[in-house]
């Protein structure tokens, strides 16, 4: 599991909700970092084989970290920044890039 190599208790935190679970995380973190630090590796299910997927590249190129953020699908968790109260769900439908 991913953990912080050094903890800074004074650093500001925000809370997001992932699949109904509250996760406290560093302000400014990416959604992917927040989920990884909370032990989550399973971000989406593939439409064809119903396989579990999670982040692979963390730099915006693989699209395996796709989640639904505040109701909007196809968001790259590794490129989105957390916001207090943000609701994140696993993506279960087809993946896409454009509108």
């Amino acid at each position: 599991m991913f953990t912080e190599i050094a903890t800074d208790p004074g650093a500001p935190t925000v809370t997001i909700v992932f699949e109904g679970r509250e996760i406290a995380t560093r302000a400014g973190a990416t959604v992917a970092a927040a989920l990884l630090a909370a032990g989550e590796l399973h971000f989406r299910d593939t439409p064809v084989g119903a396989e579990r997927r999670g982040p692979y590249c963390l730099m915006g190129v693989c699209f395996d970290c796709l989640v639904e953020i505040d109701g909007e699908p196809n968001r790259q968790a590794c490129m989105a920044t957390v916001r207090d109260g943000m609701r994140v769900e696993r993506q279960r439908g087809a993946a896409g890039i454009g509108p």
Partner: protein
Amino acid sequence: MTARPDIAVVGAGPAGMAAAVAAAEAGAHVMVFDEQPGPGGQIYRAIETPGPAGDAVLGADYAAGRGLSRAFRDSGAEYLPGATVWQVSPDREVGVSVDGRARIIKAGAVIVAGGALERPFPIPGWTLPGVMTAGAAQIALKASGLAAADAVFAGTGPLLYLIVDQYLKAGVPVRAVLETTPWSAYLGALPRLPGALLRAGKLRQGLGYIRAIRDAGVPVIRGVSGLAVAGDGRAERVAYTHGGHRHEIAAEHVFVHQGVVPNVNLTRSIGCRHDWDPAQACWRVATDAWGATDVAGIFAAGDGAHVGGAEAARLGGQLAALGALCTIGRIDAAVRNNRGAPIQHALAWELRPRPFLDALYRPAAADRVPAGDDVVVCRCEEVTAGEVRATAALGCLGPNQLKSFCRAGMGPCQGRLCALTVTELLAEATGRPPDAVGDFRRRPPVKPLRLAELAALEPDDTDGGDAGP
């Protein structure tokens, strides 16, 4: 946002920052777009916002980026962080989204400095959660101070050792390093060693990492083949062949890496010519000595054009700036050549060890083109090597035809994670060279564009040359 820029730069890594500094110094109005929250690119990621992993963990090469990022901040170039470029048109219109708002900005010249990505590593189980690239492990460390204890690192290339070394310096235990450099690569690299020895310091640095990893008691197993990750819905164990036997290690996190290759999606979508680079087994955009592509006013620099490392990227960025300044008429060719000569000299020197490194760290053919038919090649559309082979047997000759047969390359990553594999697979299956097989066509948008952004799009809102919104 301000008037139409003379030069737009995509990417604020070493290449983009150096290009911006050089162009701004010459008095040009420069705009720099990067989707990251701060400058630095891959090597200097989060250079302005040091997290728990400081210079002691990330090393001197990382810390060295601070000088460049400061020069960049002071350069007068207009820098937009969090700016995703989803399109550049052949007539130099840059489509970019910032803060959920899309706009199109027309520039006199565009320098694409979007960098590299890690080469696909298509092995059984590489799609399981818990398998990530070593670069991803490093991004988590640099940007968020996160690391996973007892991971297995597998693959080849200098970056792999660097990242393991950074993990160890951060006090994070590593279970094993599985080295896939084929023995034949050492032999192939040997004739190129003399050229590289002129830059012995660089080579020693690499050897130093390997020694440090061994000294830390981490098993480094060399000459590994047949990597496979398995587990129920997530990585649980990694298997490999070594010394003629199969072995297995338990691991929840497997970090794979076999070098970096140019991210060609943007230059491809502009329509620039690309050639197959047999030494690095990848596509690269064709440029002249100034980074000019065959599309007028479009330049490419850094590891996104040709993988040569951060210092070569910095020098390449400076050359592209001179090329672009000359194209827009800010300087004449004599000035360009004069200023460029010492930079070109330094670049040639910097690239001296490259043929040796390219030969040594050229991934084994079996790690680029999976032998097993059930290995997933296209992660997005879940297409296997067997399906691609079967399609080739039906007479499909090229990647674009393949799309209509089996959807490979049609997912959101737009071929970034499968194009090289598909080209080499089809080359193997049809007995033709990669150049003849070709590559997927890439179309804009090359980055996700949200509906709300598109709806708010104002075409070329810098038209007329005065202040924008």
